[in-house]
């Protein structure tokens, strides 16, 4: 079997498996070999689950041979951010104090993907504690800074760092990431991937490390929007073990050949101070979308203290979730210097300030709802820059660059879905990206528009030079 198969979209891999042109065991072996051989180059992998994966793959082959096809993920290998509990491997949360942590159960997402027939091959690297202690540099995980497959001196983004690097370098066809405050969109953008942050409550958080109970979300990262939607359909759903989960269902068969015309808003100021290639590639993406979208520019984005609100909530909930780590002093075992002490400040968040931030989320949602009365989605560059250098503090990387309205904090505070997609290359040959953000439970519409865009472009089909 040619190694070319490694770069096929999930949907095509699923068809090859269903038609038995490819065996799940063969496919798993190919990816496992890459995870073991190439994974260390990117610091992308914590644990390769060879035996577990081959067991699942053998079952998939037997079931498919007997006519029991579970669906498009049956036999498809994947990797999970190492904050999802798995009974068969350590779950480290990317943090040295938890290197030996084991759970005796699988997170709901892992269980649901197993029901869909997917093959868990690896636990993937992440920023320690998903960045909850205030990291300021890429080297913030006991596995080292995660390297961007597109440039060896660049970071893959965080906190779903390994999920981004692993998919971009063809170590797995899709991965699961998590987002509290940008941790799916950022690595997807930096690594040239599609990353789908679901609506809060769309996907069960049971068995996932808690950083912020009111912000944490789990979502797929893959090369295509269509793949992300296929994976989300398997992950989503009500879960009695997570009372925040919603009863809305998400199904996805295939994107329409031509979606209904979309009304898209470009927030005012979202490209003013971004890197020039980010702006140019964004403008080209708007041109590509023009046949299926009515695009309105300079739409006023509601004026709220988005950053202070999300920061206050992350501080308070994160410090509470990791109170024992902080109070015991074991936090000093973390890797990033800022993480060894930064979390203490969260312990001082007054309850009134936390509640004030939580109260603000209601008028914030009302104001954003007004925007969505006129537009189906907001479109903007995912990030103002290409990926940060792997060896610099974030604050020193790109002075003077900023992204305008705080869309990532706003989207997370309001619990909204967003889809990042690659749209070209910028400085240092690194990917640039744009993002669509819609109202709650609009993932299907975002994926339809995203899949159409990707049928007109080939950014998602390109491969990093040395991968």
């Amino acid at each position: 079997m040619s190694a070319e198969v490694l770069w096929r979209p999930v949907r095509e891999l699923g068809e090859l498996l269903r038609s038995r042109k490819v065996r799940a065991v063969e496919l798993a072996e190919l990816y496992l070999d890459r995870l073991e051989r190439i994974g260390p180059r990117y610091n992308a992998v914590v644990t390769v689950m060879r035996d577990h994966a081959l067991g699942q793959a053998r079952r998939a082959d037997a079931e498919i041979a007997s006519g029991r096809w579970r669906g498009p993920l049956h036999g498809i290998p994947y990797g999970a951010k190492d904050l999802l509990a798995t009974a068969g491997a350590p779950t480290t949360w990317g943090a040295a104090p938890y290197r030996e942590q084991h759970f005796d159960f699988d997170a709901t997402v892992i269980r649901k993907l197993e029901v869909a027939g997917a093959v868990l091959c690896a636990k993937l690297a992440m920023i320690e504690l998903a960045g909850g202690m205030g990291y300021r540099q890429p080297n913030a995980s006991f596995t080292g800074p995660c390297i961007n497959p597109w440039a060896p001196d660049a970071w893959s983004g965080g906190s779903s760092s390994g999920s981004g690097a692993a998919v971009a370098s063809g170590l797995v066809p899709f991965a699961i990431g998590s987002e509290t405050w940008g941790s799916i969109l950022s690595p997807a953008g930096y690594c040239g991937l599609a990353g789908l942050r679901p609506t809060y409550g769309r996907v069960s958080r049971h068995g996932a490390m808690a950083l912020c109970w009111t912000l944490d979300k789990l979502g797929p990262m893959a090369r295509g929007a269509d793949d992300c939607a296929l994976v989300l359909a398997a992950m989503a759903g009500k879960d009695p073990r997570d009372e925040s989960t919603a009863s809305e269902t998400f199904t996805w068969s295939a994107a329409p050949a031509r979606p209904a015309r979309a009304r898209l808003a470009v927030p005012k100021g979202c490209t003013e101070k971004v890197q020039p290639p980010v702006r140019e590639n964004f403008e080209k993406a708007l041109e590509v979308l023009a046949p299926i979208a009515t695009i309105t520019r300079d739409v006023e984005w509601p004026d709220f203290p988005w950053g202070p609100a999300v920061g206050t909530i992350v501080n308070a909930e994160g410090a509470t979730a990791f109170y024992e780590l902080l109070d015991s002093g074991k936090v000093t075992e973390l890797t990033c210097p800022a993480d060894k002490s930064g979390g203490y400040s969260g312990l001082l968040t007054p309850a009134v300030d936390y509640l004030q931030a939580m109260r603000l989320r209601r008028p914030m949602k009302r104001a954003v709802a007004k925007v969505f009365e006129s537009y189906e989605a907001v479109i903007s560059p995912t990030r103002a820059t290409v990926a940060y250098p792997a060896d610099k503090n974030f604050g020193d990387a790109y002075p003077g660059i900023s992204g305008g309205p705080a869309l990532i904090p706003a989207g997370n505070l309001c619990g909204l879905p967003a889809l990042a997609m690659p749209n070209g290359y910028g400085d240092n040959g690194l990917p640039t990206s744009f993002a669509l953000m819609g109202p709650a439970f609009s993932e299907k519409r975002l994926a339809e528009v995203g899949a159409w865009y990707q049928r007109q472009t080939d950014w998602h089909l390109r491969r990093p030079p040395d991968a």
Partner: protein
Amino acid sequence: MADTPDPETEVLFEIIRQRYAARLTAEQLDELRKIIDGQVKAARALRAVRLTNADEPSQRFEPLTLPSPEGGRGGGLA
């Protein structure tokens, strides 16, 4: 001219110093003072937004319910 320390920052920082100074270096304490100063400024930005008495936090508390003998939710404590 050096900035005048924010009194609110200093008060909060003193709590950290009292609780955890023994395990933190001078450099880490300095860094924490800056982080706390940022938090104080963030809190002021939050408080500057006018809210009414009716604006509740965006989180839901659910009361204890027990299954009724007939099935489904109901009852509460007897």
